[in-house]
């Protein structure tokens, strides 16, 4: 792959990652979450594949397949199952405020990424702030979402952002750690899926405003 094509491919993947996250925060509707999470997983898998092709690394290509299976297919399916029959809950802040907040968070992501220039100035390093921005968007979803499903999506976006930073900054953490992380995330999502079901059985909905019995 020529350097120019590589830079374009990395830029394209990062752009799709960012776009899918922006749409997730903007749309909020449960029905939109599934295709958007799939798209984000696909973008992340493509990113890993591009890095693998550039480095000629078989290991990275295998990881790309793993990311594709888990993040573009598996986890979104769990998500759609746990959100069946749910109405999208109104978030704590309206769409306009969310978009302004996201613009601010994107700026923050670029500012805090300044120390990463120590890694060089290639196309991968220039894309790292996108991963950081994803993590911040995930927090925005977690803080403003009143619905169990929105918090689940927020957690997944944070994880995708962290993975993107890992692959862009170092070509991925050691494989044994990567596998452990994937397994942990999968189990956390399954636990949240089971808990969502129990919350619905117990409270009749997954509106987290009902979870207010414990306080001081």
């Amino acid at each position, binding site marked *: 792959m020529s350097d120019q094509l590589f830079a374009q491919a990395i830029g394209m993947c990062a752009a799709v990652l960012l776009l899918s996250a922006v749409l997730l925060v903007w749309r909020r509707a449960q029905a939109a979450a599934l295709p958007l999470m799939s798209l984000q997983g696909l973008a992340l898998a493509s990113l890993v594949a591009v890095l693998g092709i550039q480095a000629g690394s078989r290991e990275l290509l295998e990881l790309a397949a793993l990311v594709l299976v888990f993040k573009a297919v598996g986890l979104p399916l769990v998500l759609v199952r746990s959100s069946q029959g749910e109405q999208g809950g109104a978030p704590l802040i309206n769409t306009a405020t969310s978009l302004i907040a996201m613009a601010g968070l994107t700026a923050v992501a670029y500012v*805090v990424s*300044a*120390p*990463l220039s*120590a*890694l*060089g100035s290639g196309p991968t390093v220039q894309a790292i702030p996108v991963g950081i921005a994803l*993590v911040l968007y995930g*927090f925005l979803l*977690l803080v403003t979402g009143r619905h*169990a499903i929105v*918090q689940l999506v*927020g*957690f997944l976006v*944070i*994880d995708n*952002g*962290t993975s993107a*930073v*890992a692959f862009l*900054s*170092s*070509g991925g*953490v*050691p494989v*044994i*750690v990567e596998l*452990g*992380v994937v*397994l*942990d995330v999968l*189990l*956390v999502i399954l*636990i*949240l899926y*089971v*808990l969502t079901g*129990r*919350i619905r059985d*117990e*409270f009749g909905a997954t509106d*987290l405003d009902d*979870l*207010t*019995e*414990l306080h*001081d």
Partner: protein
Amino acid sequence: MGVLLIAPLAACLLLGAGVVGLRRTWLNRYAGVLASAVVLVSGLAITTQVLGGATPTALDGLLRADALTAFMLSAVGAVGLTATWGGLAAPGSTSARAYAYPALIVAFLLAMSLAVLADNLGILWVAIEATTITTAFLVGHHRTRTALEAAWKYVILGSVGVAIALLGIVLLYAATVAAGGPTLSWVALMRPNLGLDPGMVKMAAGLTLLGFATKAGLAPMHSWLPDAHSQAPAEVSGLMSGVLLSVAFYGILRVQAVTDAVIGPGLMRGLLVAGGLLSVAEAGALILRQRDLKRMLAYSSIEHMGVIALAAAVGGPLAIGAALLHMLGHGLAKSSVFVVSGRILAVEGTTQIAGLRALMTRRPGLAVPLLAAMAALLGMPPFVLFFTEVAIVVAGFQRGMGWVLTVAVGLLLVAFIGLARHTGDMAFGAATVDEEPTGSVEPSDTVDRSWHGPRLPLFAALGVTAVVGFAAGPFADLLGQAARVLGGGQ
């Protein structure tokens, strides 16, 4: 020698598989006790090796034990034994079918053992995240609305918090890649002149500290803790409060040692002082107006983690040694008092402080261990927490952080007053008729002397807490070596 490192992990795996596969009543009942005992014995065996000058490794260096590992593994085993043995259900109440609970307890002990044995930041992260996974359903075990609420908050805050730590670890790894020697191993990261970029290490250190501090229950990231610790079954609360918080803090200590060597102690010290003081202050304020015994104990854990954070901020052999000893003493005392709270809940039907009165005259078998364990937690001499707190304050003054420790002592007094007053109310407070929970009113002349569970684990745990402050010889050597491991160069 490496077999000693694999032994506790393999034993826990086998026990867990046995519980799920065999479905025997006796195994379900004793699995947690057996697993804790194996972890404790391995920890002590590794301790003797480490004191003999060896550094056992296993699995191509993925597992490695230095003095700090040996100490932490022994602490996991000792606190685990107190909680699981003391919390043994009455014979006949466990069934062969209820295998999920013991299997999760064993998996929880496995995850904590792996966290302290791993010589790799990434594996440490995976193990700490696994503690959240294994305890999620333990917290929600009672399946009430409040237990469900606590479990949800715990999983979301716990896993998101730890996800921040992963971002930090990823950046630290990227820094080592840029410096030409990709590694996440402690030993490699502690070598001098790695050439890591200070800006990246600073960012990585802040994020990792923030993430692990969430799991360690430091304010202001502690909001899951009182809910989870008050809703979980007593032995789970004892394990989480007594040793899980310390295992998460162990992660902070390791990262602090790595980053201090690159960027100096300033950043971590500032963050730890802020978190420590805030934890002690918030815990003190909320203990004073607490109405529930288990929530009060949860806030007391936040207070003690705050003290440990201040000790880590002070640094140096005296403060670090005291912090490690404080972890052990707090773990044993806190798991004992949670075990007693479980028995109180079983017998009295409530853990509301207002509903528990005159326990000393009505149920001395519950009141005596409660008072002894609370005295240990309050840091009364001869219990070890007295000596560790004094040592931390002295170390603070020696290293020019006197004002921080002066403020902390003032805040600790508030927590002390709150805990002492509530404990006094429960043990000696006059029973009033309207506060007596309905249905459990008994004739006043019957005195219940039963301990409502095994006595030995409580005797052993509190006995160790009482004498360990005076222990010298190999034990002091171990603490000194562990502090040196964190002080740079091993």
